[in-house]
């Protein structure tokens, strides 16, 4: 597409092209019309909310279907064509179920926790560049913001486990706290590698910096290793198998959300899936070039053909691929034990992450990129 070409060319030639996010437009529109500003804000809110509910349902359906086919089953087939409305039916069921609060629970915190758990992934949705010009806000400290907000995600789980006044919930919450805080480190170290490579913390800036090749292979081994570390660490952050010890069904019945039912349980469920989408989208953005099309060296014809696919589709395809891998892990691997989990983080991933960061720094300093930056 000509559009992508223009932008990529602009980025490559260091001209001052700035992508138009919704936040930028809102700010720009203030002198002209406050109604327009309000409209942009409304668009952002409605857009994120719509995306949220659609993503939640779509991902749950996809996960069910994928899991079923991994297991020689068919998955949902009854509600709607191909069972497409199954998630909707389940959501309705959850909405109408009693919202049960255990008698000795800390009532206010118990009710607050699911919203806190959902808050983090929703905030992060605003930062993701879905396509050129389709982004709610592009912060110049994007990566820092992601790390900071991402660390806050454990609060919802901790509060849920603590306030339920249930031993299983408590164990689950404590496990989650230890696990998420540990794996945040590795995830951040992996993110730092990309920051080093691209020299920016803005997510759009990182996408644009991958014009000459995605960081997963352009950053020598360091990029690939950082990708793997981030994939593992973010799967652990998501509490998904093989790192689902906070829920650990066969051990803790349902872990931190044992005492939740109805809509509040649905919120935890939704939070997990939105989180998965956010993490996959970030992985795609940071390591797989975001909405950038796939280019190979100077195969002009091939590259032009790739450019005809809209950037939004590219972004979705990459995100879906990462989501699939995470689901694939879940439906193949058994669960780790708590101490093995900690061992993996502190004795394997973290040292590897530091070494990797060092290698990346050397690569950046010596400018030994396999594909030289387009000058």
């Amino acid at each position, binding site marked *: 597409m000509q559009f992508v070409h223009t932008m990529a060319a602009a980025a490559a030639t260091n001209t001052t092209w700035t992508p138009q996010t919704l936040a930028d437009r809102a700010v720009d529109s203030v002198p002209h019309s406050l109604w327009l500003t309000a409209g942009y804000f409304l668009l952002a809110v409605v857009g994120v909310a719509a995306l949220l509910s659609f993503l939640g349902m779509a991902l749950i359906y996809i996960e069910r279907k994928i*899991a079923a086919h*991994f*297991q*020689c*089953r068919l998955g949902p087939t009854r509600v709607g064509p191909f069972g497409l409305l199954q998630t909707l039916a389940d959501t309705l069921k959850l909405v109408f179920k009693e919202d049960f609060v255990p008698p000795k629970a800390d009532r206010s915190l118990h009710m607050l926790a699911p919203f806190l758990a959902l808050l983090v992934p929703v905030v992060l949705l605003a930062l993701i560049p879905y396509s050129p010009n389709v982004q709610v806000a592009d912060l110049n400290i994007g990566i820092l913001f992601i790390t900071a907000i991402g660390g806050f995600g454990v609060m919802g789980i901790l509060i849920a486990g603590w306030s339920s006044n249930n*031993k*299983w919930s408590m*164990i689950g919450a404590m496990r989650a706290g230890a696990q998420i805080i540990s794996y945040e480190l590795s995830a951040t170290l992996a993110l730092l590698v990309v920051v080093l490579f691209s020299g920016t913390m803005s997510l759009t800036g990182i996408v644009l910096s991958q014009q000459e090749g995605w960081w997963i292979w352009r950053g020598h081994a360091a990029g690939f290793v950082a990708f793997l570390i981030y994939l593992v660490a973010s799967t652990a952050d998501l509490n998904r*198998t*093989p790192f*689902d*010890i906070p829920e*650990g*069904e*066969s*051990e*803790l*019945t349902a872990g931190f959300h044992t005492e939740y039912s109805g809509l509040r349980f649905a919120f935890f469920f939704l939070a997990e899936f939105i989180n998965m989408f956010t993490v996959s989208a970030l992985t795609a953005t940071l390591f797989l070039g975001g909405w950038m099309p796939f280019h190979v060296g100077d195969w002009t014809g091939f590259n032009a053909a790739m450019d005809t696919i809209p950037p939004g589709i590219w972004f979705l395809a990459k995100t879906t691929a990462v989501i699939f891998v995470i689901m694939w892990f879940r*439906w*193949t*691997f*058994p*669960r*780790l*034990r*708590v*101490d*093995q989990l900690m061992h993996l983080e502190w004795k394997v991933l973290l040292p590897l992450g530091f070494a990797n960061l060092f290698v990346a720094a050397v690569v950046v300093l010596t400018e030994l990129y396999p594909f030289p930056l387009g000058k």
Partner: protein
Amino acid sequence: MTVHVRTLDELLHAPLEADSDLTTQEYLVNMGPQHPIAHGSLRVVVRLDGETVKEVIPVPGYVHRGVEKMCEHLNYRQVIPYTDRLDYLSAIMNNWAVAKTVETAAGIETNDRIEVIRTIMAELQRLQSHALWWGVTGMDLGAYTAFLYGFREREIIGEIFEETIGARLTMNYIQPGGLMYDIKPDFAAKVKKLLPYLKDCVEQYETLLSGNVIFQERLRNVGIVDGARAVALGCTGPVVRASGVPLDLRATEPYGAYGKVQFNVVVGTVGDCWDRYYVRLEEMRESIRIIEQLIDGIPDGPYSTIRYNVELTLPEGIHYGQVETARGAFGVLIVSDGKREIPYRLHFRSPNFNNLWVVTAMAPGWRIADFISIQSSLDLVIPDIDR
């Protein structure tokens, strides 16, 4: 002299201590009767210090049906369908235990055909049981896909049972003096077609779980019990064999057609969860081997040597018979008064009841997650514990 009798309440309300320098208090959790690890309704009270298991108190009885009392009013043929409902994954082998005891006590002869068919059926059931166990272990350790693969194989073997016997779970197939039905003419062909598939399945099990580093880490060196201790704790079956004791009644006291076939008793070396896991996987291969040796030459003969309605009265005294089920030695102890055709007292020596006790020795010191591995590696069937 008075004998002090305790109660569970007394035990559970004993003061809990803080065991470490940190002032964290120990606490009790109920693993079951409603808990994913309970696989039925077994209640296990676990005293924990943080994540570490301090003490395990099994509290069975949630499916106690008083089968032994019921059997005091049933004749020997009527006892057999009740044995289906003890260890329902070894129904045919349980039937065999009663049939064998009655046959020995009453002096009923069987023929080669009956014994060979019994052996094949028992081994098919062992395969079925181990396949399901493999899946359940996968599920306990978080690999849910394994569960459905295990169930798939179980159902495929179940189809063979359904064709021959008419039931998939509670078969009531082996009767004193013979079988309930003769096999169908295409039985051998169908089983022979099934065996390569099962071999392939065992290979898949190896790929999916055995070769997985997470799975190995979860099982290896967890819940070690050495051979002498396992025997003293009354373990039988794969649990004691994993500790290196080749106690397998099929080999030490051959019954049925086991004396005629070549097979290995699979034993482990360390006695940890991994050995208990792999012993069962190897046993599946041995079972396939046994069936392969028997399936081609099923002798001719009647499928029952006595009529169904013949009155079965055992001579006065104690009669004991036992078979090796998928979980260990299943014994039937019949005390007969020699007059009536119902037992005076009938006691089932159930392998699961005895294997459960070892968990109290294995689990302390390990974490909650290891407790799951340990209990899963024992392959407990709760109705057999409670009877």
